[in-house]
């Protein structure tokens, strides 16, 4: 391999990127733009759930109960309605996500020591949110029950408050959130999106860069020159690789400053793993560029093989454990899964080489595989 020739191609490519101002801006704006959009746009924190109330009892007890819902930071009270029929359009138009109906004789039954029930109607369009909302409502009701049972037992059996408490709810669950103590979805999502952005942006730039030469016809200069195919591929891809290596640092900085995500791992290890991952995704762009002839097709194909798997099959939004067996196998075929483990391991769990070596090895394997496929399928003598 003649490094002068590699350097010549790299220099030419660099000048070309630099002179196409839109493309150059895109090389940095695209990843940062994607990152900020998804980082702010996707949140799994279920908070401020809109709800409406139908209070058929309208007594001190029912108001006291409802205040617990209204005062919770998870719920956002939107108003009272007078009849059940009024709830349907509110739910259908997504003005509220759930409604709570308090039956008549609510207070009377509770004061006379009887069991009563409230009905909650939950919008189930997004099942995850419905499930969590249901959990919150149950927790508030359980808490209310606990207190009313305690007062009831104290007055009826003449025991102390503590004894009553132990009878009513003998076991408490103390949850400890590991790695993401505040259970802030932005911590995991923002760091996880490094994986997504570095999967999407490098192949885009690379594929467009190579296909542009094909579409313009300037690739024939390369076909006719003395440069070997490995020299061309290496030289051509180096600038894109460099841009991506720079983008890693920018994204990393954004994750830590804007989203306030802590980094607990080893910076050198993580940077090294990221560079391997970027080599891998640049290879994806190379393979895409060999399959297509036009820039539109290049972009579409990149979306198909990088964006969608990265979004859906990496474990970022959808936990691997809850996928079907078939999908689980599929998701192990994409490098995104391994890099996500490295990313979350480094950012949130403070893991290093000892725990993550297998994932890094998988990335190295993908990088080599993709570049070899790219090399073998790039021909200086096109078939047509």
């Amino acid at each position, binding site marked *: 391999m003649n490094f002068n020739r590699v350097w010549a191609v790299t220099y030419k490519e660099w000048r070309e990127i630099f002179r196409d101002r*839109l*493309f150059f801006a*895109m090389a940095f704006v695209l990843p940062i733009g994607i990152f900020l959009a998804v980082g*702010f*746009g996707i*949140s799994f924190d279920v908070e*401020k759930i809109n709800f409406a109330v139908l209070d058929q009892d309208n007594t001190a007890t029912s108001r006291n*109960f409802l205040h617990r819902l209204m005062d919770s930071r998870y719920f*956002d009270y939107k108003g009272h309605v007078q009849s059940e029929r009024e709830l349907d*359009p509110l*739910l259908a*138009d*997504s003005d509220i996500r759930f409604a709570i109906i308090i039956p008549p004789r609510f207070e009377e039954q509770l*004061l006379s*020591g*009887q*069991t*009563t029930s409230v*009905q909650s109607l939950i919008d*189930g*369009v*997004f*099942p*995850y949110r419905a*499930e969590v909302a*249901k*959990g*919150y*409502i149950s927790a508030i009701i359980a808490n209310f029950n606990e207190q*009313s*049972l305690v007062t*009831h037992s104290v007055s009826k059996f003449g025991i102390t408050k503590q004894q009553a408490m132990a009878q009513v709810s*003998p*076991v408490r*669950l*103390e*949850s*400890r*959130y*590991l790695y*993401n103590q505040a259970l802030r979805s932005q911590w995991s*999502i923002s760091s996880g999106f490094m994986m997504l952005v570095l999967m*999407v942006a490098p192949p*885009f730039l690379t594929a*467009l860069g190579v296909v542009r030469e094909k579409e313009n016809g300037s690739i024939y200069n390369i076909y006719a020159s003395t440069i070997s195919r490995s020299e061309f591929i290496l030289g051509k891809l180096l600038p894109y690789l460099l841009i991506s290596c720079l983008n890693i640092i920018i994204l990393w900085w954004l994750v830590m400053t804007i989203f306030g995500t802590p980094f607990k791992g080893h910076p050198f290890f993580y940077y090294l793993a990221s560079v391997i991952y970027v080599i891998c995704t640049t290879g994806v762009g190379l393979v895409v560029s060999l399959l297509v*002839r036009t*820039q539109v*097709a290049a*972009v579409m194909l990149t*979306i*198909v093989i990088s964006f969608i798997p990265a979004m859906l099959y990496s474990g970022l*939004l959808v*936990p691997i454990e*809850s996928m*079907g067996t*078939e*999908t689980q196998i599929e998701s192990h075929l994409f490098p995104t899964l391994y890099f996500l483990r490295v990313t979350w391991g480094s950012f*949130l*769990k403070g893991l290093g080489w000892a*725990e993550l070596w297998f994932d890094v090895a998988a990335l190295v394997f993908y990088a080599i595989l993709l570049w070899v496929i790219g090399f073998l399928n790039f021909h200086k003598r096109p078939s047509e």
Partner: protein
Amino acid sequence: MNNHDFLLWWERIIAMTLKELKQLFRDPVLLLIIAYFFTLDVYMAGSGINLSLRNASVMVIDHDHSAASRELIYRFRPPYFDFKGEITGKNEAEALLNKGRILAVLDIPENFQRHLLQGLPEAVQFQVDTSNTVLGTLATVYAAEITAGFGQDFAGKRTDMNTGQMAVLPLIQNRYRVLYNPNRIDSWFMSIMELLTVTTMLSMMLPAAAAVREKERGTIEQLAVSPLSSLQILFPKVISMGMVILFGVSVCLFFIIIPIFDLPVKGSISLFFAVTALFVFTTSGIGLFIATISHSLGQVTMLVILLLLPIILLSGAWTPPEAMPQALQWAMYISPLYYYNEMSYAILLKGAGIDVLWDSILSLTALGAVFFNFGVWRFRRQFG
């Protein structure tokens, strides 16, 4: 405008529409990709993706080894949890959690049963890996419900109250009903969302690509000297691509979503298609605007991706508007997908009609008029 002019105007539109369709049908790669998006892609998103907790691995540190602790452990079982066995110490638990082998560890203290029998309050610890927020949140919610249920049953047994006698205590029971998707089937939500995403992407990309291709190849000059007005050049691109997209949507709905995922269509299908047509028209206005500011297909695709991400993420599908920061809530009101997204779920799953959705339809129409006119105006300034 007399009758003859009117006919001529439409003849030109039809002729141009046919030209656009022919051009599209001669690009087999692009057609294949469009077909992929409307069939396999939606199928994969709907079938593989599951945002619920299924068989989450739990291990237990049981310091008590009593009937009570075994009873509690026994309750951590499928569908939500999968009890994977016992471990002895905290170090082992941490190692397993770090490696991601298990999701949670339940820690039962010594004298658990004795304290319970003496009526002393007890606490069990539940350590959850929350690097994936969805899993972490759901696991905590379910574990809290399980423990509370165990505690109540245990207290009931201890005071010799069976469930029948519980009815004489002042308790509120939560009778919840999950509307629209009572079995909480994720594939309904996911497949519709994927269909909407695909529609958005294509309705921006295809008209923009059709317009900029003319610029890139120079055929725009031929059109500019022809007797066609700017509107007659641009509108057929929107009509033809709109037709292709509507056809794709109907294939997806009638051959993938309804038969495979058993989606019960509650509302009017024709209203859904009318809304889809309106939405395609609106977003194609954005596409035309992109076409006027870019010079090549490469630039178009980059701009489309850059705009597409915020549009998707501000659609309210992943994060409902009420959970967004205030500034982003305002931004959502100018995102056409926000209205389309809400209306699609409302029509397909909730059975809403025009009486509920008229305000969203009006907003989308207004946005469409603004976007489309702006696109045509820019184009006319460039070539008029």
